[in-house]
């Protein structure tokens, strides 16, 4: 298109201004992309699904949820206790206990580089129940399957996230001991049997649930049958996957009415609702990011673009007048200015969002923003078009006014001043 050629010529004419505007756009798009990534992830995590929903059984009142391990067997099946009750298949359930500790025996030396938090679960659940891992495909899936198989063979096996392995300085095959701070005196020895695929679980680690439970029993035997303080509290959550809303409410009824779960009593809620409750504490923070931070940045960006285009238009008034004399229509001149802004905005937005996507996901390994139990965030693929939309949108808003004033340049007035 001929107009497009003109647009590019004009952008090249004042490279400094084009570059400055484009840099400003890139920086702002970067920040907004980061904010949107976090918001969209949280929104997705708290959106109720209609089918294949995951539900969480936890202690009814207290946070953190601590249930006796004796609950596990029945809860894993959806707590059927009457004839005709539904029974959840093993592949659709998972028990979680949290084991935390440090590779350094001295509590004073605890640091980010020695700390480890592990999910204690059934090895197979890693493949069938863990968010994102259950949908893993291709070679990473094969790798994980191999690691899980090794974990099933090896009672003291541990699968580490890549970041975690790096900070602990451990590789597959290494053995080490962890000194726990939430299970006092339950210091466990581990052997690394595999790594999580890169991404969401970079900082996590997983061990076998039965390893932790049998270690508690062993502690009792060594202490003349005395119970470990954490005995009776070593089951934190039970996950169940249910096909649809109807089955969900039926299983929910089973769990809530089952007389075995009264001390402590339990509750059953969808994963998204559970996450939502945790996020309540961050409600105002999220509100601020969504309604103050992002709009303020977008607005600032529009102002910067508007400023740059206004300057541009004012400098080129004579030129627009000449174009009018040559027969260019006002709307063509408007379009010229708009296109110029849009080209800069869209290109910078795309480059910035795309760059952020590649940089954060592939180089930085996620955006560190500890909120609730989420550690780091990934830029979704949608960021590519966010960039285009943010860059284009702000460029449009910023250039409408200057473009209109370029459109309305009065030829006679411009030349009256010149001649």
């Amino acid at each position, binding site marked *: 298109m001929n107009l497009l050629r003109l647009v590019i010529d004009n952008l090249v004419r004042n490279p400094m*201004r084009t570059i400055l505007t484009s840099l400003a756009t890139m920086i702002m798009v970067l920040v907004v992309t980061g904010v949107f990534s976090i918001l969209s992830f949280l929104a997705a995590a708290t959106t109720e699904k209609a089918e294949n929903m995951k539900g969480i059984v936890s202690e009814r009142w207290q946070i953190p949820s601590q249930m006796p391990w004796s609950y596990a067997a029945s809860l894993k099946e959806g707590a059927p206790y009457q004839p005709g009750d539904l029974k959840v298949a093993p592949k659709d359930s998972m028990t979680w206990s949290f084991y935390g500790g440090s590779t350094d025996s001295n509590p004073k030396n605890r640091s980010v580089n020695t700390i480890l938090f592990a999910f204690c679960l059934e090895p197979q659940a890693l493949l069938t129940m863990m968010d994102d891992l259950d949908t893993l495909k291709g070679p990473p899936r094969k790798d994980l399957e191999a690691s899980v198989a090794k974990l099933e063979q090896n009672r003291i096996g541990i699968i580490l996230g890549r970041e975690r392995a790096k900070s602990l300085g451990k590789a597959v095959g290494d053995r080490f001991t962890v000194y726990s701070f939430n299970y006092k005196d339950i210091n466990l020895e581990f052997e690394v049997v595999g790594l999580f695929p890169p991404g969401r679980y970079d900082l996590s680690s997983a061990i076998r649930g039965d390893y932790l439970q049998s270690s508690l029993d062993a502690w009792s035997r060594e202490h003349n049958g005395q119970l470990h303080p954490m005995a009776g509290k070593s089951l934190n959550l039970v996950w169940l996957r249910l096909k649809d809303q109807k089955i969900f409410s039926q299983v929910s009824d089973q769990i809530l009415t089952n007389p075995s779960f009264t001390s402590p009593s339990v509750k059953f809620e969808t994963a998204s609702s559970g996450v939502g*409750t945790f996020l309540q504490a961050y409600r105002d923070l999220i509100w601020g990011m969504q309604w103050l931070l992002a709009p303020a940045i977008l607005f*600032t960006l529009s102002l910067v673009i508007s400023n740059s285009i206004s300057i541009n238009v004012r400098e080129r008034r004579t030129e627009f007048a000449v174009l009018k004399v040559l027969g260019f229509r006002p709307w063509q001149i408007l379009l010229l200015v708009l296109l110029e802004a849009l080209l800069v905005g869209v290109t910078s937005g795309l480059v910035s969002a795309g760059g952020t996507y590649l940089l954060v996901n592939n180089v930085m390994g996620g955006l560190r923003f500890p909120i609730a139990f989420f550690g780091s965030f990934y830029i979704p693929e949608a960021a590519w078009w966010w960039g285009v939309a943010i860059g284009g949108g702000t460029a449009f808003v910023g250039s409408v006014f200057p473009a209109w004033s370029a459109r309305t340049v009065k030829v006679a007035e411009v030349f009256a001043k010149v001649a």
Partner: protein
Amino acid sequence: MTQLFAVLTFFWNHRPETLAVALLAVAGLGLISRVPVAYSAMNLVVRWWTVSLTIFAFVLVIGLLIVMLAFVNGMYALTKTSGQPGNVIILADGATDESFSNLAITDVSDIANQPGIVRVDNAPLVSRETYVIVNQPIIDGAEGRPKRRFLQVRGVDNPEISATVHGLKLMPESRWFSDAGVGPLPGAPIDAAPAVEIVLGNGIARELGLDRKPEVRAKAKDAERLVPGDTFALNNRTWLVVGVLESSGGTYDSEVWGKQSLLGPMFGKDNYSTLVIRTKDAATAEQMRDFFANKDDKGYTKAKLNAIVETKYFEGLSQTNVQFLIGAVIVAVFTAVGGIFGVMNTMFAAISQRTRDIGVLRLLGFRRSQILVSFLLESMLLAIIGGALGCAIGCFADGWTANSIVSGGPGGGGGKFVVLKMQVDAAVLSTGMLLALTMGFFGGLIPSISAMRLTALDALR
């Protein structure tokens, strides 16, 4: 690198002073420049459209920074004021936080009677507490409010003593809950189940008040908050507010207080979680901490305990503050860099419009450096106006209440859900102005240098 960090920390800790020095430096530049400041100022007036756009961008960037910092400031205020000097928190051995701690009843009595604890009327100043975080479903709540929340419930034995230990006071028209922890619901039939009597922290009284439906709020004694006499439902019981605590600015503002012997078992925690003892001063507190933690095996041995000086405990909860502060600074730096590019645009345009002026000034005998300073001042002037307006707008955030969380980070155990008051103070405002000045300086520098390098003849051609 560490030196740079030390220097930055120094400036950060002395922000108002740094701002004063920076402003003096700007004023100094105005004196050296010789090009009348009025010339710069008038030029801003003439290009009012571009200038107002630029100033507006400053206002937004600075205003945003102020709001973010006010939030973090509110969190720091919370963790700083929650602890009482002289208090020591005693938890079970191995418990990293109150919610994981279980103290045996027998141990508690023994601990309370150790020497070194302040006594009033021959009773030790010891607060025996069971702290539970309760997952509260909000039944019949208002639109747009959460469906569930984590309610922090603290059951205490003797509320007067506990309040004294924590330095808390009841608001007027408030009373403590009865010794049984329950009482008759006003206006209810005699044989009705008694209500759970509780006292609310100032912040949570407001949060719970906002959960009510608009029509309920319209008829309430106070539409904004729960006051003595109001009720809410939890665990199939009616909970009657008998008192509200005066705002202490600390984490206790976000707690619900009731009778330990009632609330502990109700939520599945029969034991005490926490014992807070009052000693006569901060130094004694350190000694008592060492004693109860059995440091060097020379202290208390009847039970294995974890003891923490209370002020230290709350300082330890500032991990989240640091994270948020870092987040705010990162966002501010990025937006500021974006803003700098905007200012550069404006200043480059200003200079290309006034090329002839520069030529004339040079012919009149002004030195290059004076031209540089003149344009730099113009951009700083922009920054000062925009920054001041941004600060003024940011001031509205002062006193806003917001929900947040304070925690000791990974390994530190559970966090506390808090209602905080955002605080704009001199340090925050200075940060805003300093950022504005920095943006003005860097945004103006390169264009000014390019103006300086123009030769008179080129400029006049």
